[in-house]
């Protein structure tokens, strides 16, 4: 299976506006509230994913949570750093933070696909499912994933998100039986994002940090689309996001080029980020 085919489209920009208020949180939840329960959690009184571990805290990570984190919310920094520590990609935590700013404005239940003007995202997830379902293991909630669009902290397109880990572990990929709403669980979303970043770094020519975001928007930007207007636009938006968030890419906390050579593998990353709460 081509990684490009599987991963293309994951993380298209969400167009979330403004920092969240209570009302925004509710609106983001509106569509997600209708989702099916997770496998293994059929209690009708139990909300989807309510058995997940809580967000990690400072005690769960080793690295520094003060230096060069800019305006990234304090209570998400430990999750982002846990992603860095779990994936063993030094410097990736702050980069994930900038990506999350663009994709969700840090609203874990950000969802594109549930509003009338989000047809593009629904089309994207329908296409992703239709074009890839025959060469990937079956998704238990495939039809729902196709209609879902994209969402979560890192703006994942639902079918690709649920196939996370398939190239590495095949039918043992951990999200195959989960409903697409699981992308609203920040630990699950972080697992998908960590795997995705590793794949970009491993399979594509990545010249600098901004190239990661180009690959995040569309891996073809790192091959045939390199140098195109769209490629340049994604990079420019990323640099603007870096400034808006207040991250210094030249600080010692972020290497000039990220390196995924110490990637411990999908099962280890899943165990560290998500634990046993899912399957």
């Amino acid at each position: 299976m081509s990684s490009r085919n599987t991963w293309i489209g994951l993380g298209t920009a969400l167009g979330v506006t403004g920092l969240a208020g209570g009302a925004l949180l509710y609106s983001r939840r509106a569509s997600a509230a209708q989702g099916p329960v997770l496998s293994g959690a059929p209690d009708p009184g139990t909300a989807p994913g309510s058995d997940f571990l809580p967000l990690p805290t400072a005690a769960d990570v080793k690295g520094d949570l003060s230096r060069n984190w800019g305006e990234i919310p304090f209570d998400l920094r430990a999750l982002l750093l846990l992603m860095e520590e779990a994936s063993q990609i030094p410097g990736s935590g702050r980069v994930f933070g900038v990506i999350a700013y663009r994709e969700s404005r840090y609203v874990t239940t950000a969802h594109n696909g549930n509003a009338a003007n989000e047809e593009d995202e629904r089309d994207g997830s329908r296409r992703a499912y239709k074009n890839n379902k025959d060469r990937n293991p079956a998704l238990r909630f495939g039809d729902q994933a196709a209609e879902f669009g994209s969402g979560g902290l890192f703006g994942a397109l639902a079918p690709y998100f649920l196939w996370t880990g398939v190239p590495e572990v095949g039918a043992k990929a951990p999200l195959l039986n989960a409903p697409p709403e699981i992308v609203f669980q920040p630990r699950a979303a972080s697992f998908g994002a960590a795997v995705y970043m590793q794949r970009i770094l491993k399979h594509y020519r990545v010249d600098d940090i901004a190239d990661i975001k180009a690959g995040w928007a569309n891996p073809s930007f790192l091959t045939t689309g390199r140098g195109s207007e769209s490629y340049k636009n994604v990079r420019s938006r990323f640099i603007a996001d870096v400034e808006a968030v207040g991250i210094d890419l030249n600080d010692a906390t972020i290497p000039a080029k990220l390196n995924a050579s110490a990637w411990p593998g999908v099962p280890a990353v899943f165990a560290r980020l998500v634990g046993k709460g899912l399957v």
Partner: protein
Amino acid sequence: MNVDLSCYGGRIADTADLVGDCDLRSPTEVYAWVRLEWEAMAAVLGFTQQFAANLPSRAAISPMAALQAAGIAAYAASLRHTAKQSENQARTQSAVLQQMVATGRERGELWRVSVDPTTLPTGACYEDQGQAIRAFYPDTAPGYFGEGWDGPRPRAESACGWQTPLVLHLGAFPWVYSSRLDATGPGMRWVSASAQPAVLGLQLAASLMEPATNLRQDARQVAAIFHHFDTHTQPLLARLPVFQSGRAEAGRLYRRGGFLYVHQGSLHVAALDGPRGQLPAPAYNHILRRFACFFAIRRATLRALSSLPASVQELAMTSTDPCLREQATAIRRAG
């Protein structure tokens, strides 16, 4: 003897209960209580790691003083990496804050200090590229802490255009402005490369957990601000569901234990929208907790009054606050 906070108005005792009781005669209890409060502050203000690294021994002779010092040091350490203001602004803010704290102590009004800015060092102005700029925000419009304040207006002409009093709610630091409750408390930005007025701000807010400083503060001022805050936030909170473990939805804002909570999401991007403007969820939690701590320590101090130093007892007996005087007198009578 039972200490009664009802003289400060309804809901005060319930608010104090949010942070639990503390027996000031027990060093173990004091350590646990104060540590928890610093951990709560650290979580909201982003210095959890520094505080954990600075945690004093449980065997400290004065757990309150040791934890206060550790908390302040941890906060100062965390600010080394934050965005910097100009040196001029930060130095001016430091000088102004020191003067305001002195004024507030004298009046027994440390929580909210309101002064004529032209009487302060440099007139509460600093110079930036040849221009005189106000060192603080002129916060006198109606907001979550009150309806706005007229005086004391500037008696002299202000070089930087002050036409209102300078009002700071230092008890709620870093959310010091009633009408500008940004997601990041404005006081968090009071930092330059060489000056950290923000540290002074937090030191003052935290000092209200110390019995002597707590008694010097006129609780009637705090109660009035609390009731205003409560009146304007309760209708907003009433719209939120109560968190129930096992039934919560990811990303949803809940009420939990009197505070705001986002299940599987960031509290720092959640806010309440009300007629007085947006109230960020971390600001709500932090401010409510400051009120709760103030009255919890007031109650704990009165309960333990007879075992506290004579100088502390004297503060209660001679307070301008009739409620405090009466309680202290009754405690002394009860022996």
